[in-house]
């Protein structure tokens, strides 16, 4: 843990969608080996933050900066961010009819390998490779032949996101409400898959509404987001406190502090 380096540095980031300001000055520093949880009520801007990091075109950055490995992340198109190791597990994974899961995963993997200067895999080699990866989340191999997310249940889609994460081996994974739509068994499986992928040189940002996922993916830091700002940061115990007391007191405390200052 002593050799941590800064992976992501977000400074005073603000962003809007359809002319409406959603993020109003976010500051966040993530070092390698860390797990950060971002919690907050619905509409607080958590998912917007995740999408802005990934470069979604609907969101316009209006201020601040984001450095990833010391480079300006906001200058990079979405595919370049991905190739540089930024992964977003989607809250609502997209269906792609007609494109098989295995073909999609292989295309993504080989694109990534080409960017990294690594070896690309042919369909047979990739099949062996991906079959190991799907075991992480207990996915049946038949899902490899099905169209990407088409007809998948909510839980299956979320597992599929973690399979993609396992295949791409990102440096910074942002999990956007990966727990929503999962029953407790599926939640445990997904969490163990994520833990398996966590290494000292990586980092994870977990965006969630509920504390329960954090019983299984234990964060080093918990940030509370409210109205587009991070209003409180604490250790893992903060999550349990939020579970008990809700979010209102955090906002009140934040406003009081600001008023005093």
């Amino acid at each position, binding site marked *: 843990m002593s050799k941590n380096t800064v992976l992501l540095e977000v400074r005073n980031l603000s962003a809007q969608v359809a002319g409406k300001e959603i993020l109003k000055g976010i500051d966040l520093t993530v070092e390698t080996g860390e797990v950060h949880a971002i919690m907050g009520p619905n509409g607080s801007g958590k998912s917007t933050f995740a999408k802005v990091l990934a470069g979604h075109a609907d969101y316009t950055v209006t201020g601040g900066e984001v450095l990833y490995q010391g480079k300006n992340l906001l200058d990079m*198109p979405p595919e370049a961010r*991905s190739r540089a190791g930024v992964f977003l597990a989607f809250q609502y994974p*997209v269906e*792609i009819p007609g*494109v098989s899961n295995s073909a999609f995963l292989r*295309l*993504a993997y080989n694109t990534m390998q080409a960017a990294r200067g690594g070896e690309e895999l042919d369909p047979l080699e990739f099949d062996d490779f991906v079959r190991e990866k799907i075991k992480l989340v207990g996915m049946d191999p038949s899902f490899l032949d099905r169209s990407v997310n088409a007809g998948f249940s909510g839980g299956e889609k979320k597992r599929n996101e973690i399979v993609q994460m396992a295949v791409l081996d990102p440096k910074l994974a942002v999990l956007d409400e990966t727990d929503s739509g999962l029953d407790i068994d599926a939640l445990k499986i997904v969490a163990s898959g994520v833990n398996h992928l966590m290494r000292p040189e990586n980092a994870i940002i977990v965006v969630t509404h509920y504390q329960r996922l954090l019983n299984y993916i234990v964060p080093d830091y918990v940030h509370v987001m409210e109205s587009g700002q991070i209003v409180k940061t604490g250790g893992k115990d903060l999550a349990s406190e939020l579970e008990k007391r809700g979010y209102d007191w955090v906002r009140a405390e934040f406003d009081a502090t600001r008023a005093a200052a």
Partner: protein
Amino acid sequence: MSAMLEKLINQPYKHGFVTSIAEDVIAKGLSEDVIRMISKKKNEPDWMLEFRLNAYRHWLTMREPRWANVRYSTIDYQDIIYYAAPKPKKKLASMDEVDPELRRTFEKLGVPLHEQKALAGVAVDVVFDSVSVTTTYKKKLAELGIIFCSFSEAVQEHPELVKKYLGSVVPPTDNFFASLNSAVFTDGSFCFIPKGTKCPMDLSTYFRINTQDSGQFERTLIIAEEGASVSYLEGCTAPKFDTNQLHAAVVELIALDNAEIKYSTVQNWYTGDENGVGGIYNFVTKRGLCKGVNSKISWTQVETGSAITWKYPSCVLLGDNSIGEFYSVALTNHKQQADTGTKMTHIGRNTRSRIISKGISAGRSINSYRGQVKIGPRAQNARNYSQCDSMLLGSACSANTFPYIDVQNNSGKVEHEASTSKIGEDQLFYFAQRGIGAEAAVTTIINGFCKDVFNQLPMEFAVEATKLLGLKLEGSVG
């Protein structure tokens, strides 16, 4: 998204070059004299000339049809060259004798004339403008009694077969363009698979239009006798000219008892430029007759080219238990227009047909599926399944589906499904988040969309079709 798509649309035509070899060309214009001249140049027997002249006289009484959902300026039939043949016309025994310039043309096109090249195992009958240049593998096929040669050669060598079957599926009076073709066709392919013979290799013809203003009127006739089977591949490419060139071919397939014919086309004629100037008018009549019991005819087409594509490869299901299939991908871009589909005419009992059509429209193109399923009064227990899917890229293009269903007995069963989709911004973002750029994403989505059709193509064609779609859409996303 629309900016992306527009970029993708501006892909220059790769095969736009003219081969400068001496051609034997006759003057523009059409008359009985021209037809007599064509027939004489080809040293045809009298019955063949009569067939042409009768077709021509009938054609003079017909009017050009206007019902298709396509728009083009009036064609001046006197402004077309009806015969253009490369010189010298001597018969060639091997590849080495082929004009080196012509061979280079085919190499540029990627037509594997050399036997050792990629399509090894495929016999190629190359039609360059109007005369068949060389036929490979002919000897090997001859040992099995299979005849695979140019149409002109068939008229000379196998007149009894040509006479028996020519016009038996598409009569010379069938429609305006079929009549024109019957009058002036210059060459094409002939294929005869005798009783009980399975053709051991895919047979292939590559068409290429070279002379400016030369209409190309091929005639293809394929006969599979009882228990015979054959897979036939047709590839089409044309160089780039500003004026529109008319291509009005006729293809007739005949399957006798228990015979099977599979006909695959990858069509990449010049589409015209992004403003709709130039390009091929592809007005073709293709029809198969399942004449015998348990016979099967399957059409697979990938249509990516031509300024206008207007054709309906069809099946007449005459024999009991016969099967007709139509698998189609039609991609239109820029100002291309396509009105294509099929006709399945069920006459015999227990006949079945299947239609899978995938239309992709980009740019300002118009893409229409038009299909007719007809179940006759004696076609007990006939069945049809049709699926017509359209995909739109951008917002300036259009897709239409015109299904005509005519059921004349109450045991028939007809199913029709249709869908329209658009490649969504959210899909492209999903791909991008996995490191995959927009072009690769669009190609992947479209290949997925067309998978049911590509699966029907022979391997080499499937690979070519996949590449072709990627090429056609290159630069329209980014």
